[in-house]
């Protein structure tokens, strides 16, 4: 018995030993053929397309994001009744039945697209029909929830999900969602077998790109520019707002804008970001840099006087004259040259500087070179090579014969505003990868110091003078705030025939505020206006409206305190002050529930709104504003007190 057991045991042992050895051999010694066989039998490949990263404004508001969508395809060979399928599809896709039928009829093809990027609801509807031969492929769809906002800066994404223009192209490497292939074991029905869900859920999406743009400022800028082109019948307008201290671009607008959700249908002309791509002769806004260069070289002080020849002077055989024939200036200080935008005065400063020094000064301010903003398609502008003939030198001094971009102008004014340092402007604040990686943050880099702080301060004062009451920039003023800036009016160059376009102008205004401690630099251009053309009349008011919005939104306290616009509360009580104080008292009294509020002077709607938290019954007599209340304001009242409001027409 015992021996039989031992034999049986040994037999099992040998068998198991043989099996173990075979298993160990298969595991330890690789066999390519077996490996391939195993892979074919037990593994399946799944594709995971990760989401393209979002583009956010500086406050995290989404400007672009990818959402899943589904593309409908058909295998005509599998569709049995193509008449029925085509008519049903035509109804939901809202296309003629014939066009679908034509595609479904061709049985030689095994794959035809019927509609790219349909919403989930439509997909669910079609799947409910259970028509063999119809299927969906998941594809990401780029969505721009703000529609037209920041359209030319954002750029485009193609139907395959790759960036084609603008920021979408520039940050493709960071934004792009990846298509990942993962090998997983599969079961008999081909379903992937997962040990955990991470492979499907934790593949990181493309990084989010956070801009320095503030979407509300952008909206305001676009709105004002749109109003301006309608008012002045212009063909377009551009605007840029920069943070004066950090050189961050807060708004960058080109109007007309385009709807980004349908962007590819617009012409290239409309899709161009003209703030960075268009180089143009900007006119008198360049005078500031001529004066700044002369100031830096010690050639002038704000009080240095120049003879302006009665508004007309011959330079290099050509006449240089003021913009208006009635401007017959004789002696003007450097400050006045800026304030009155004297062409002759600026030309004389430029002649005193000479071409080499002026060219070097303009190059220092960044003209003729790319600013380095993170956007494709930035133009360098055109600066003629030296030497400059005297006539060209004079022309360049007042912004003709030199082509610059709006971004270059705004960035150069930022250098004056921030105390004299030219910085590389930035449009992207940070790149925020998903999946726990560290964000990459950006800050503006100093390029070079152009002016000393005191020279920059002098320039700011001189430019503040250019918006005084009798100056060309008067309409750019914002009540309560010091505004510094310069108007510009330039004829447009005809790119085909050469020379200037008749009645083609670009009106502009560049400036910053508050002039004593700048927060915002704004540059506005209006292209080919039909109703007027002077920057002082067209662009300056647009600048003022945008600037007013910005300082109020930022809560910048008015600094321009003078006896004419401010009255000490203890000295005189104007009607307005009394009204304001009464308003404050009223707000305080409203908080005391057992005291009847002051409703005098309010309309019925306003009075009832103040009473809405009280349980009192209200009788109303008359029309207009409240002139008497029972009980009187400030007297004790309970919820049971019946209130009578007596209204009278204020007239």
């Amino acid at each position: 018995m015992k021996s039989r057991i031992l034999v049986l045991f040994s037999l099992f042992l040998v068998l198991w030993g043989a099996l173990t050895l075979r298993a160990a051999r298969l595991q330890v010694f690789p066999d390519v053929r077996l490996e391939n066989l195993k892979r074919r039998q037990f593994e399946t490949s799944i594709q995971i397309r990760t989401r393209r990263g979002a583009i956010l404004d500086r406050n995290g508001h989404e400007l672009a994001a990818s959402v899943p969508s589904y593309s409908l395809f058909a295998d005509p060979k599998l569709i049995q009744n193509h008449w029925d399928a085509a008519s049903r599809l035509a109804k939901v896709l809202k296309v003629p039945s014939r066009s679908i039928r034509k595609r479904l009829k061709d049985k030689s093809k095994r794959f035809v697209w019927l509609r790219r990027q349909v919403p989930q609801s439509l997909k669910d509807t079609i799947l409910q029909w259970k028509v063999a031969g119809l299927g969906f492929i998941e594809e990401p769809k780029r969505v721009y929830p703000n529609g037209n906002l920041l359209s030319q800066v954002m750029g485009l994404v193609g139907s395959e999900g790759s960036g084609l223009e603008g920021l979408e192209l520039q940050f493709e490497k960071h934004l792009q969602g990846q298509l990942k292939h993962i090998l997983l074991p599969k079961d008999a029905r081909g379903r992937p077998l997962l040990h955990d869900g991470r492979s499907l859920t934790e593949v990181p999406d493309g990084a989010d790109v956070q801009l320095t743009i503030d979407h509300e400022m952008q909206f305001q800028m676009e709105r004002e520019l749109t109003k301006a082109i309608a008012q002045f019948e212009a063909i377009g307008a551009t605007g840029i707002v920069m943070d004066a201290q950090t050189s961050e671009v807060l708004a960058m607008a080109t109007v007309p804008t385009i709807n980004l959700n349908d962007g590819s249908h617009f012409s290239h002309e409309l899709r161009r970001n003209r703030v960075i791509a268009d180089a143009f002769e900007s006119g008198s806004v360049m005078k500031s840099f001529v004066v700044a260069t002369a100031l830096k070289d010690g050639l002038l002080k704000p009080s240095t006087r120049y003879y302006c020849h009665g508004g007309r002077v011959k330079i290099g055989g050509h006449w240089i004259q003021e913009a208006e024939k009635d401007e017959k200036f004789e002696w003007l200080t450097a400050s006045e040259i800026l304030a009155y935008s004297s062409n002759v005065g600026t030309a004389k400063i430029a002649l005193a500087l000479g071409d080499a020094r002026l060219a070097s000064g303009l190059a220092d301010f960044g003209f003729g070179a790319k600013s380095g903003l993170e956007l494709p398609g930035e133009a360098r502008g055109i600066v003629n090579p030296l030497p400059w003939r005297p006539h060209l030198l004079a022309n360049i001094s007042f912004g003709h014969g030199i082509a610059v971009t709006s971004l270059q102008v705004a960035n150069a004014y930022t250098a004056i505003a921030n105390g004299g340092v030219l910085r590389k402007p930035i449009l992207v604040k940070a790149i925020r990868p998903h999946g726990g990686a560290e964000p990459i943050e950006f800050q503006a880099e100093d390029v070079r110091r152009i002016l000393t702080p005191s020279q920059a301060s002098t320039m700011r004062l001189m430019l503040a003078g250019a918006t005084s009451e009798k100056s060309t920039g008067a309409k750019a003023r914002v009540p309560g705030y010091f505004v510094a800036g310069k108007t510009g009016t330039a004829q447009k160059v005809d790119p085909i025939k050469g020379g200037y376009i008749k009645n083609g102008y670009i009106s502009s205004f560049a400036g910053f505020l508050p002039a004593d401690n700048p927060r915002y630099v704004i540059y506005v251009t209006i292209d080919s206006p039909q109703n007027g053309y002077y920057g002082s009349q067209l662009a300056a008011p647009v600048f003022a409206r945008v600037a007013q919005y910005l300082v109020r939104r930022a809560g910048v306290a008015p600094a321009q305190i003078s006896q004419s616009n401010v009255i000490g509360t203890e000295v005189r009580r104007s009607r307005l002050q009394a009204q304001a104080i009464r308003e404050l008292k009223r707000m305080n009294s409203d908080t005391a529930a057992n005291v009847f509020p002051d409703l005098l002077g309010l309309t019925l709607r306003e009075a009832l709104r103040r009473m809405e938290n009280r349980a009192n019954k209200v009788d109303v007599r008359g029309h207009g504003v409240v002139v008497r209340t029972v009980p009187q304001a400030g007297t004790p009242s309970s919820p049971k007190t019946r209130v009578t409001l007596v209204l009278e027409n204020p007239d």
Partner: protein
Amino acid sequence: MSRLRGSECLPFVSVFLLIATLFSLVLLKMEVRRMGYSVLRASQEVRKLRDHQRMMSMEYAHLTRPEQIRKYAMSKLTLNDARDGQIIQLTGQKLALPQ
């Protein structure tokens, strides 16, 4: 006697243990597979919910765009742009007149 019986049973016990271990391994493997299907379903649900959340956040961004808020403020709340003279700035002890 009892010791002898015990030693006689040892091979059977060993075989039983071996088979039980193998069964346990198979059962564990099946359990892992079953859980794998649950994880697959759950991860698909997570993806679906994430997609839904994205759609919702897009909808939110669409509804809170400045243009929409402005339209709503003007049509539903009867608000309008401040005109000159309607804004009073208070600066400390001073009062700036209408702007």
